[in-house]
């Protein structure tokens, strides 16, 4: 890991996009009137709460609909702000924040893609894997704090991975341009 002489513009763009996305997660329940979005518990990948979002204004409606598709939105596993449920569960929210943090870090620092990066991958994915699997097979019920910690770890490593992918693709394009 070393500090970049010049910050990565492409990574910065991705960082800003993910940062806005993460901020919107918190802005949505704050911007809506209290008690307007609750009891969203449902199936993963199924738009089963469409009717509850019908009366929301466009940006928040889209945000909650995406959450409905990608997340189970179980109320007990989600944070409530301003008496409104957040669009994603606590783990997913932490993952989005983690991705933004990871990309923000890689905007100014460079991590080499080498064998050492595997340790980071394992550090990021094993906790969420253990927590999620044990919960899935009902060995234990996780808490929101644990979900946030494991989600942040996984999100940060994913942010690093996205940043490295952007860098590597950029390098490949540069090489191809030089060849031609």
């Amino acid at each position: 890991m070393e500090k970049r002489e010049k910050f990565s513009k492409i990574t910065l763009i991705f960082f800003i996009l993910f940062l806005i996305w993460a901020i919107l997660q918190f802005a949505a329940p704050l911007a809506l009137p209290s008690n307007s979005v609750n009891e969203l518990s449902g199936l993963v990948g199924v738009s089963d709460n469409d009717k509850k979002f019908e009366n929301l204004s466009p940006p928040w409606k889209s945000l909650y609909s995406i959450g409905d598709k990608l997340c189970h939105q179980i109320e007990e596993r989600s944070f409530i702000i301003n008496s409104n449920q957040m669009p994603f569960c606590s783990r997913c929210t932490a993952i989005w924040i983690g991705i933004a943090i990871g990309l923000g870090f890689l905007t100014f620092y460079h991590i080499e893609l080498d064998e050492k990066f595997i340790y980071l991958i394992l550090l990021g994915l094993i906790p969420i894997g253990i927590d999620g699997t044990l919960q899935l097979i009902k060995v234990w019920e996780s808490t929101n704090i644990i979900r946030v910690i494991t989600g942040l770890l996984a999100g940060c490593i994913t942010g690093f991975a996205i940043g490295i992918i952007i860098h590597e693709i950029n390098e490949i394009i540069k090489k191809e341009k030089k060849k031609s």
Partner: protein
Amino acid sequence: MKGRTTCPKCKKEFVLDIPDNTDKQEVTCPNCSNNFTIKTTNSSDLNNEEECCWEEHGEPRKTILSSIKPKTNRPMIAAFLLAFVFIFGVSTAIFSEAFIETSLSTFSNAGVNGNLELQVIGQSNETLQNVSISIDDTFYGKTNINGVYSTCNISLGFKTLEISYTDYKIQTREILVYPFTTSSYEIKINEGIGEENISYDTIGCTLIIAIFSVFALLGAISSFNRRNLDVAIVGSIIGIFSFGFFLIGAIVSIVALIIILISRDEFENGKKGKIF
């Protein structure tokens, strides 16, 4: 160290063994018994004393490398396969509804059925006996004395459960019957008249699938660049768990992993030792 020198008097060349790291050494010629000094260092004045030079035994060491193997397209193929795993994974995360239903129907068509266990309790967490259980509008049976209803060999996928009991609200809820393990649900019903509809699921969010897919893409890039064999292997292993497109993503990841392992010699920093 062993070496050879030439006697400056009789010009006899002979081999001798002297202590390591010695700059100067007094020697006696075995032929004419002449005493002279040899210098083992590469000092500048050595050229002036050519007759007393010292030559270390043996030739300089050479590194023997195996012949370079021709590059194949295997790592590139693995890279493209892992890139597809990424696309599959992200698509599955977005279109997971179709993914879950189709994956489970694929298992059902292959003859895999699931087991279901329901525990029905009242408002005070008391177990309720003789509660009627219907699944997808078909009556299945009633709960036992422990408030448990269990059935095996039920087809996989989303099911609509209807729970009815005298003086209690009829509850309709959507459940998912999944393979290889018992799908168990605890259902609380409330006293009163009328119906209540509950949607609930315990499967993790599909965002995880997208995250696993990102690491498959990382493996694809390592494979494309023919660098970091370990990252390529780990990327393809994580790709297996992305389960994209009815398990096709997992199968493609396994194929990519095998190709990477076969072509591991073509990677820089490979385990077979390209670093010297």
